[in-house]
């Protein structure tokens, strides 16, 4: 577990420029299968070209360009969050898995289940238990350590 955690910390970066692409890909591969088990394909809404580039290597990933078609939205900046909010306001019943690449985004978005971000030179991975529960997501044991109740 500790090895995996170390591995995650080592390969993850918010800005990604300091991150090994291969490791980031592996991490997100694990994350996606943990958050969406048994899904034949992951329909992802990502508008950051860097992340798109990395995640396109995952065979099960299908990029979508509309929120309603997405199983998973990766927030990488405020503008995307803003667009999401607008969409959510228009479609209150809409629900999908949201994940942030910054702490601030996680804090500002009540629907995000977790985040993978950089703090004091160290990668940080965390999940919010109530939000996971809302989506009926049960994380594998290896991620349990990063589940917290509140921010």
């Amino acid at each position, binding site marked *: 577990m500790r090895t995996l955690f170390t591995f995650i910390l080592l390969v993850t*970066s918010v800005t990604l420029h300091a991150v090994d692409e291969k490791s980031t890909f592996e991490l997100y591969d694990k994350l996606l299968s943990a958050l969406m088990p048994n899904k034949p394909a992951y329909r992802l809404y990502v508008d950051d070209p860097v992340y798109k580039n990395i995640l396109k290597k995952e065979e099960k990933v299908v990029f979508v360009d509309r929120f309603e078609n997405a199983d998973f939205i990766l927030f990488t900046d405020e503008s995307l969050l803003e667009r999401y909010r607008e969409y959510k306001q228009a479609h209150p019943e809409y629900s999908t898995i949201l994940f942030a690449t910054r702490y601030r985004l996680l804090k500002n978005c009540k629907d995000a289940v977790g985040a993978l971000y950089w*703090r*004091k030179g*160290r990668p*940080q*991975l965390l999940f919010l238990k109530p939000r996971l529960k809302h989506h009926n997501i049960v994380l594998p044991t290896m991620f349990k350590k990063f589940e917290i109740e509140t*921010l």
Partner: protein
Amino acid sequence: MQRNRLSRVIFIIIGAMLLFMSYLQYAISQTTESIKTLEVTKAQEFAGKIERYLKTEIKGDSLVAYLDAHPEKRHEIDKMLHAFLTKEFRYIFLLTKDKEGYYRFLLDASIDEPVPYRSIFFPNSDVYDQVYRSGIAKVTKQKEHTEGIWLSLLYPIKKANKTQMLMVVDLSEAYSENLNRLNDPLIRIVKYMQFFLLLSILLLIYLMYNYTRMQKALMTDRLTAAKSKYFLNDFFGKHTLDAYNMIMIDIDEFKSINARFGYEEGDRVLREFSKTVQEHLPNNAFLVRNGGTEFLVVIPKNTVQIVSFSQNLFKLLKEKVYVVENEPLHITVSMSVMDVPEGTSSLQKAERVLDARMLEVKNLGKNSILFVGKHDVLNRTYSLEQVRYMLDAEQLICLYQPIIDNQTEKAVRFEVLARLIDKEYPDKYVTPDQFMDVIKGTSQYLKMSKLVLREAFGTLQKYPDIYLSVNLDLNDLYNTEVMSMIMEELKANRLMADRLSFEILEEHEIKDYDRVVTIFKQLKMYGSKIAIDDFGSGYANYSHVLHLDIDTLKVDGSLIRELSAMPERTEILLRSIQTLARGFGCEIVAEFVSEQTIYERVKALGLDYSQGYYFGKPQPIEAYMASLK
């Protein structure tokens, strides 16, 4: 032997190089480590200062509660902490543990990118918990891929005997790189050295591999699959020669086979011959191809009886039928066989003896076998070079044989007999008949005579009551250099010269007695005596007595020996010599008195002195002096 030594040396060099490489690596890591220690100490001092400041600024027993309650104070402290951020310290922040055990940010020196108060922090190491629990500061090295951090000092801040906060001081990676840059030239040199050491090691391994491969090829004769000469030399570098017996085999008239059937068929016969011999050899024996059609069989002693084995082998090789171009072909061999004597250590010498025997076989018409006796190996003559080597190393010893007064039966004089010492056979002295012929007329003779004279005078000095005689060849006395040397020695020891006799040996007819008279006068100048050696044989005859001033006649041993076989006739001859000696005032010494009956006849004849094994064999003077006491 040489190969093993070389391998060992190469392995030692490689080992030393590897050790040196490791040492260089260690030295570099030590330097880096000391830089690290220095920086950590500095960080601890900073942390200590911050701790003192915090404790002054924050009131009450619970630091965390105070900070929770005073956001403006937090801001103030953050600002102050910011002052501590230098190029060395990238991040300084303080954490606390919440009720659930999660770390939460309290204070942060990074004003530019402030972390929300009490936001969560997942440390990437168990050390955080260890420090929190133990209250003892620790340093952790950051894992790969963390951003810009070299080391983290985890410093507990305790109050009321409890760790309340954990200060994290991150040492900047950029600063560490700066420090390392100071070390860079040295590190670069070390890396280059390591690189070249590694190259050298690889080169050495490559050379050794090639050398070993080449040696393997050199060990076996490619045509016959017998061992090579190289193998033989190498083998006897590791094994003692006298633990083996040797047989030299040469195929007779092999040229005719080559001429008749061609070289290809000749080679085939050689291969078959080699195979036949090898199949017949006992365990641990081997066949060496000396070159051409000459082979050497080396057999460990005690595996077979060498004589019968070699005879069987000879018979086998003689009866063996080769089929060449559908024709039966018989070949014959010449063999010389040596039961190598104990103490033999020179392969070259042993081969020389086998060669000499082989030559005898060839001269006798080939197709035969001859055996080498121990005598052939040990009683050989020495070359001038070998004698020169022994004399240069002063491997010369003088032995003494007593000359007995027949009346008193006491030793009145000792004959000094020179022997050389061959280091290969230190137990057996090299006698003059084994080397004298080759050194006569050379500077080595002069050298040897000088050594003998010095030894004789040394003995005379040591034992003031004894008389000695030394041998000289008259022919050599014609040599002015030899004469000058003798005269110099006599002059230098003139007080003892009257206790010294020169036994002159004459192998040629003396044509110029005047010259010899002069030589004798010179020798007698300081009181030395002259004796004619082997009188009664060869040219040592009556004319000497007539022309020369002689003190003693030493009757030739061959005449004395005849006293046993033909006593009456020999006695007549000896009486005539005695009459002659008396007439000229000479004393007579009978040589080769080897048994009592001879001595009794000598004594009965009234000869003055006796010398021979009956009274004592040549021995170091100390042996006689001890018995005289």
